[in-house]
Structures are given as C-alpha cells and as structure tokens.
C-alpha cells in the first residue's frame, strides 16, 4: 500500500488555486504549436477542454464514437448548473457552495478540489452566457435560478429542462470554431480502445474506425480522457447506450489507479421499469422535486389495490397519503440529496407500499403546485419533461401523478487524479465524470455540468501546461515504434478472441445478466455476503461470456455488435472491482450503503477513522487482487459530522 500525494499547494484553502496558477510552469505560444494533445470524448469536459486547448495554440485531436461531437451524453442533462453567483441575495458564496458539495458528497471528496470547483463556478456562467446559451431570464432580463437537491438556496442556472444540451452545444460551438481554425482535428465514429505508454508516459492511443473497422494509431504529447462514467455496468441506467467505461478500464490496466469505484449514484426520479426487453431507463429531472411532492399510500391495503390496478392515485384521499420525504426530512423535504431520496423510496417499496404493478414505484405529484401556481407556470417550467413522460408511459402528469423509481445515473468513482487532474500515469489526464475527484460518495444535482466545464474550460488548460512545459523538447512520436505495435496487438487479440467462441448467446444476453447481478448485489444497498456472491457470479459469467458470446459478422468492418462486445468485455471485469471496493469499504456513505453500517433510523453510518480516504486501486492482473493505495482525505475546513437533512 502507498499513500498518494495529490500535490495540493500547501497554503490556505482559498489561496490554493491562485497559488498554483501563479506558480505553475507555462508553455510559450511558439512551443504550444509543437505540442499535440489527444482528447477522448466530446461531452462537456472533453469539448470544453479541446476548444480551450485549441484556442491556446496546442494541436488537438479529439475522438468520439458517435457521428457528431454534439451527441455526447452530457446533452441529456436536464436540470441545471450550479454557481455561487448569489444573484438572489440568499446567502450564497463560494464557501457555501464548497460546503454544500462537500457535505452532499458525504465527506469523501478532496477539500482542495471541491473548493476550486466552487471557485471557478461563476466564471463558467459568464463564459456560457457569452457563448449565447439561452438561460432562463426573469422579467427584467436578469438570469433566473432555481433550487436543487441538497441546497437551501436557489443557485441553479437553467435553460428549460435542457440545460445540459445547451451547455454542450455551447462547448460544441467553441469546438467547431477551433476545428474550422484547424487547431482541432475531429475523429468522429472512432472508438478509442487502448492507451500507448512510451517511457512511462502516455503518448498515444489506438482507435477503431467504426465505419471501416480499421485499427488506427495516434500519437501525442499528452492524453486527456473525458470519457464519462461507467454506469452501464448495470445494463439498465440513464446513460446512453454507447456510454462505456472501456478507456477508464484500459487506463487502469496500464497503471492508472481507479479511485472509489463503488461510488455509484442512483437517481431517485426515473421512469419505472416496464418490461424484460427494456433497453434503458429515462431520467426525470431532479428539478421536478422543486414542485412535485413524493408520496405513497399510508395504508398497505391501498397500496395493494394500486398494485392490482383496482384504484388510481386520485382515489386516495389526502389524509391517507404519506409524504415520506417531508415526514422524514422536514427541513429539506422533497429536496434531500439523491442518495437519501433513493433509499427512502426503496425503503417504502420494500415495505410493500409501491404503487405500480411491479410494486417498484412511488408517486411524484404536481397537483398542489398546479393548484398554487397554475398549469401554465408548471408547463413553462417542466413542459418538455411532462411531454416526455407522457410519450413514454401514456399517462398525463398534469392529471395523474407521475410514477418514479430510482435508477443508476452517475459514477462518482473514476480514475484517481491529483490536484492537476493527472492520473498516476504521467501525461494521462482524466476530466469530468471519468475522474473520481469532486463529488465524494454522492454528487449533488446540477454539479456534474459544473464539474465538466470547470475541468475543461478553467482547470485542465493550466495544469496540462504545467506538465507539457517539460515536454517541449519531445518531437512528435512516430507511430511505427514497438510500443504502438504492442498496444495494437492487444486490441486485435481481444477482437479476434471475441470471434473464436462457441457462438451461443448474444452480447446483450450477457450484459443483461451482469446488470442484474450488479443491481441485486452491488446496487442501492449492499452486504458483505451479497458482495462476495456478486464477485463469484461475475467471475462465472465472465468465463461463460468468453466461451460462448456470439459476435456476428466480420471484425474489421462496421459491426455494432462487436462495439458492444468490446464494451461489455470491460464491464465484466469492472463489475468485479466495483464489488470488491464496496466490500472493502466497511462503512456507509453517500451512494454506498452497506446494510451492516447504518444508524438506528436507517441512515448512512460513516466510519471516518478507518475510511476517510480515497481507495485508489492498482491493477495486478486479472486473477490477482488489486493493491489498495490511499489518498488520505484531510478535512481542515469542516468538522466531520453525521450528515443531516432533517
């Protein structure tokens, strides 16, 4: 075991970032032109980073598996983006945003990073407005805000229920401008499958052209991963179908440490499952909890009748409704953080109070708000979400309450990075959801957009320069050297292995099975026994997968099943590490809930003495246990207390 040094400047918290910025090494404009950077992923983090690096003068190559950078899954973020502007004069400040984020993460994130995030949040809003993002405005033309889970003030800026889309299109615009200028080269429909390490530094990638199936090599002076999270290990999630953890996993296998893999966020407000062939779960924005009230029937008989379809929600009189979030958490009410809301929903459903045919749903009711504010206001705030809900379920939420249930949404865990956002492999950076850094054990709503853009626009451009300042003498690397041969061979061997099986079951079959194991044993509540079982089951499933998976057609041509198979092959290994990490963390915190460690009221029971660290796992080989390295979390600004939203 190693104790990791995150390289945080040793000054008071509010001076850390400015100290770093004023003392970091710089690269002159002439030298920037000689340096190449690879960015993988075109979401908020990747697009904003690539655009900014291009503006600075670096030569950037950016990759996405979709047909256009605009499709990255940041586009699906609905609710908003946090910033400490304090336009409402409601007591916000950088410090308070920092505290809320730290507390929301159940004190498992690094103070210095979270403070920096809060510090740059305001600049993000400025930047986005200048890019022409049509944020909501009040009558006088000033920016409007709303409140979100885990905060008692309104600091969330939004563009209808499509904030992620608008912010991404802003970053995509900035990226397009650099593509036009020739500073950024776009490789769309390319799946990056391996990282090339030369003399201990990340110097390139191997990518598969998804149209031709050709395996290609790319070299650079640094590699930035902005691939998003690995929520699709669970098969059903709110992630896009193509979202994958493959490059995180490749990086891990190449020596980058994997931080807190078991911290997975389960979002309380998703549309419940409907059938066996369901391919994904759809999120209903957290912002709905501003005006919607969550409830189940008070009486078990009513719940039974609802499940059988004998009565409808509106048949249950007010006095027989249990607004359980408001009951349990009077001060935050329906706006408690996601992990807490999710568990409360699960608790009610497990107790038999679920309201749909599967018993796995609760109501999110807008009747009171419609009465108070009028249908028009509600429509203006959530119109597109209500429409989306109606399209999927066939129910009209203006008339009957929505039904919701928690689903896998976001992964707080990810590649371990230091204060410079660099992994343990020199030259390999990780930004956005794919690093572990800012959200601890639970992410607050509207913070993912903030982190992605903070990393891409305002943090990485400084920190990568600090690293590249030592690389200016390095010439562009030819790709015909041994290291590239080897990395390409690894990819090709895996592809060919997928084609030399007994061809019995499809990729989806195994992915679904893996998802079921993960959800049942490594989901919302975990036990040591269950986790051990999950590890065994995953191992079995993995060997079955490699023996029997059926990948049709040819390897080096357009082959969507092969794309999936490569991703699922990585999930099969990743799932095991998630369970392993969850087993090692003998405490409950944020999204990680171990049944053995809970308070009498069923809340998370942290163990700060033993587990106030980031578990940074070091790969040792597939059949060996990984080594646990620790990034000790020191809290100088806050006193660790039991999180309370009561």
């Amino acid at each position, binding site marked *: 075991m190693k104790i990791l040094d995150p390289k945080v400047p040793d000054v008071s918290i509010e001076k850390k970032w400015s100290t770093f910025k004023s003392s970091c090494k710089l690269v002159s404009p002439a030298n920037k032109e000689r340096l190449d950077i690879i960015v993988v992923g075109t979401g908020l983090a990747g697009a*904003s980073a690539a655009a900014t690096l291009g*503006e600075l003068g670096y030569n950037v190559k950016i990759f996405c598996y*979709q*047909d*256009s*950078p*605009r*499709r*990255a*899954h940041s*586009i*699906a973020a609905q609710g908003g983006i946090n910033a400490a*502007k304090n336009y409402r004069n409601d007591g916000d400040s950088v410090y308070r945003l920092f505290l809320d984020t730290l507390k929301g993460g159940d004190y498992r994130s690094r103070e210095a990073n979270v403070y920096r995030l809060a510090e740059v949040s*305001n*600049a993000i809003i*400025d*930047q986005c*407005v*200048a*890019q*022409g993002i*049509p*944020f*909501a*405005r009040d009558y*006088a*033309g000033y*920016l409007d805000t709303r409140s979100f889970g885990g905060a008692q003030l309104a600091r969330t800026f939004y*563009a*209808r229920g*499509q904030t992620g*889309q*608008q912010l991404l*299109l802003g970053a995509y*615009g*900035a990226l*397009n*401008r650099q593509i*036009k200028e020739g500073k950024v080269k776009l490789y*769309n429909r390319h799946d990056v499958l391996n990282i090339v390490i030369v003399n201990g530094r990340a110097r390139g990638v191997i990518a598969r052209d998804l149209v031709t199936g050709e395996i290609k090599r790319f070299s650079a002076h640094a590699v930035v991963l902005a691939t998003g999270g690995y929520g699709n290990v669970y098969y059903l999630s*709110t992630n*896009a*179908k193509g979202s994958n953890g493959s490059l995180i996993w490749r990086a891990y296998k190449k020596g980058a440490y994997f931080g807190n893999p078991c911290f997975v966020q389960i979002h309380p407000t998703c549309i419940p499952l*409907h*059938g066996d*062939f369901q*391919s*994904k779960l*759809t999120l209903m924005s957290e912002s709905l909890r501003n005006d919607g009230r969550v409830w189940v029937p008070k009486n078990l008989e009513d719940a039974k009748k609802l499940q059988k379809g004998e009565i409808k929600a509106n048949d249950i009189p007010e006095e027989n409704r249990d607004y359980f979030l408001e009951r349990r958490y009077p001060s935050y009410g329906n706006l408690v953080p996601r992990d807490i809301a999710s568990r409360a929903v699960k608790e009610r459903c497990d107790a038999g109070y679920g309201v749909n045919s599967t018993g796995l749903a609760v109501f999110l009711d807008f009747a009171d708000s419609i009465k108070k504010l009028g249908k028009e206001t509600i429509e203006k705030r959530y119109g597109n979400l209500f*429409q*989306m809900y109606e*399209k*999927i379920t066939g129910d009209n939420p203006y008339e009957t309450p929505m039904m919701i249930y928690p689903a896998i949404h976001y992964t707080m865990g990810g590649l371990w990075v230091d204060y410079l956002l660099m992994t343990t492999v020199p030259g390999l950076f990780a930004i956005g959801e794919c690093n572990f850094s800012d959200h601890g054990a639970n992410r607050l709503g509207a913070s993912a957009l903030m982190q992605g853009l903070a990393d891409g626009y*305002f943090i990485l451009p400084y920190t990568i320069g600090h690293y590249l300042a030592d690389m200016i003498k390095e010439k562009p690397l030819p790709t015909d050297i041994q290291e590239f041969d080897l990395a390409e061979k690894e990819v090709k061997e895996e592809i060919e292995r997928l084609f030399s099986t007994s061809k019995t079951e*499809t990729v989806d079959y195994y992915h679904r099975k893996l998802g079921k194991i993960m959800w049942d044993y490594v989901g919302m509540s975990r036990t040591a026994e269950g986790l051990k079982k999950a590890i065994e089951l995953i191992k079995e499933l993995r060997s079955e997968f490699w023996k029997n998976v059926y990948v*049709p*057609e040819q390897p080096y041509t*357009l082959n*969507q*099943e092969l794309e999936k198979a490569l991703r699922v092959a990585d999930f099969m290994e990743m799932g095991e590490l998630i369970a392993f990490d969850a087993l090692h963390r003998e405490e409950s915190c944020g999204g990680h809930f171990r049944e053995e460690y809970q308070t009498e009221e069923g809340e998370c029971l942290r163990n700060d003495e033993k587990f106030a660290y980031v578990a940074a796992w070091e790969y040792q080989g597939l059949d060996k246990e990984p080594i646990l390295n620790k990034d000790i979390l020191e809290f100088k600004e806050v006193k660790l207390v039991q999180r309370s939203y009561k």
Partner: protein
Amino acid sequence: MDFTLKIWRQNGPKDKGRFETYEIENITPETSFLEMLDILNQKLIKEGKSPVAFDHDCREGICGMCGLYINGRPHGPDDDITTCQLFMRKFKDGDTIVVEPWRAKAFPIIKDLIVDRSAFDKILQEGGYISVCTGEAPEANSILIPPEVAEEAMDAASCIGCGACVAACKNASAMLFVAAKVSHLALLPQGKIEAAKRVKAMIAKMDELGFGSCTNTRACEIECPKNISISHIARLNREFLKANF
C-alpha cells in the same frame, strides 16, 4: 403484437440496397420502436443472419442520433418525437412497417439505416457559434436579455441535429436546421456582431454540400421532434437580406 417489417438493407455506400422482410411476434405495446429492432437483431444473430445496423444513443430523445423513416414519416407515426420515443402502441397488431434510412444526397448511406450526417457539423463549423475564447467573458448579468427573446432563442436552440427536417423535405433542404442556429444567435445581443458573416458563410456551406432550397412547404416543421417553427427560416431570410444589402 405481431408485425411484418420491411427494412432497407444496404451493405455500404456503393451497394444498391434492397428491402428485406422479417416477421416479428409477441411484442408488447410498451416496447419502444428501437427495442423492437433490438429484439429483431437478437433473433437475426441467433439465426446466423446479419443484424440491422441503425444509429441510436441516448434513447431519450435528446442526442439526435437516431432517425428512421417509418411508414412514410421521419421518426414514425407520432408527433414531436424522435425515433427512440416511438412506442409500439402507436401501431396496430398485424401492421406492416416499412423502415427506410434518411434519404438525401448530402446524407450518404453508410450501412443499412445508418447515414452520414457530418454535413451538419460542417455547416456549423462555418460560424454556428459566437467567437469568444475561454476567459474573455464579461460578468454574466452585464448582458441583459428580455425573457421573451431568451425564450424564442431557446426554441431555436433546442434543435438536436437529427436531420428529420432534411428527411421530410421534398427538396432535402437543410434550411430549418441552419435557420435554427442562425436565428438562435441572431436573436441574442452577444450573437448580433457576427450575424452577417455567420448567415452568409453557413448558407454558402449548406449550398455547397448539396442540400436543396426551401419552398416553404412546412414539412420540416411538422416532423421536427423539437417543434421548431419555420418562422426561424423567415428570420434567416431577413438576416441574409440584411447581410447582403
């Protein structure tokens, strides 16, 4: 529910392409259209046949990646949706469903139902942005925008770039797509400075890439999953006139 599917199969850009017919059974009405195709593909793989290639990603109607021409309508027989938001309850048991790719010279077919829409990216690269570098921005509330202007800009900005407008248009015109971006930026004070340059450059690129011209039939508006109004095309025309005279 049981269906007969007639699906366009084409091996590559140069292949001629043809329809193939498949029977599919026991589909529940809650199944989404793409899930139905997933089920079909599972079946085809197990029969040793090649699965149907189609684009999709977020499956919640926002990424704009999916796009199929189903029974004569882009995104199929429902209003204000993308293909992934189409559910089988919109069909009748026993229906024959014909599935085709977007057809436009500017969107060449890559395989089966997948088309290459990078022409859209190329148009936006010509100026579908405000040229502000990271760090240059003034304080956010120093730029005031009346809420109704912000709302109209938002209407235009909600374009997902799926290409249904091109697919629906008899001239395969990309005017609604281009207009959405031009209009969004021209409405905002930040975007006005580059407005003239932007509209000229984007239209020149659109023409160069082989899209047709607009004859105001409004088919694009009807099929747009985000309900973008052709009034934005009027604004584009206005901007274009202003830019030239």
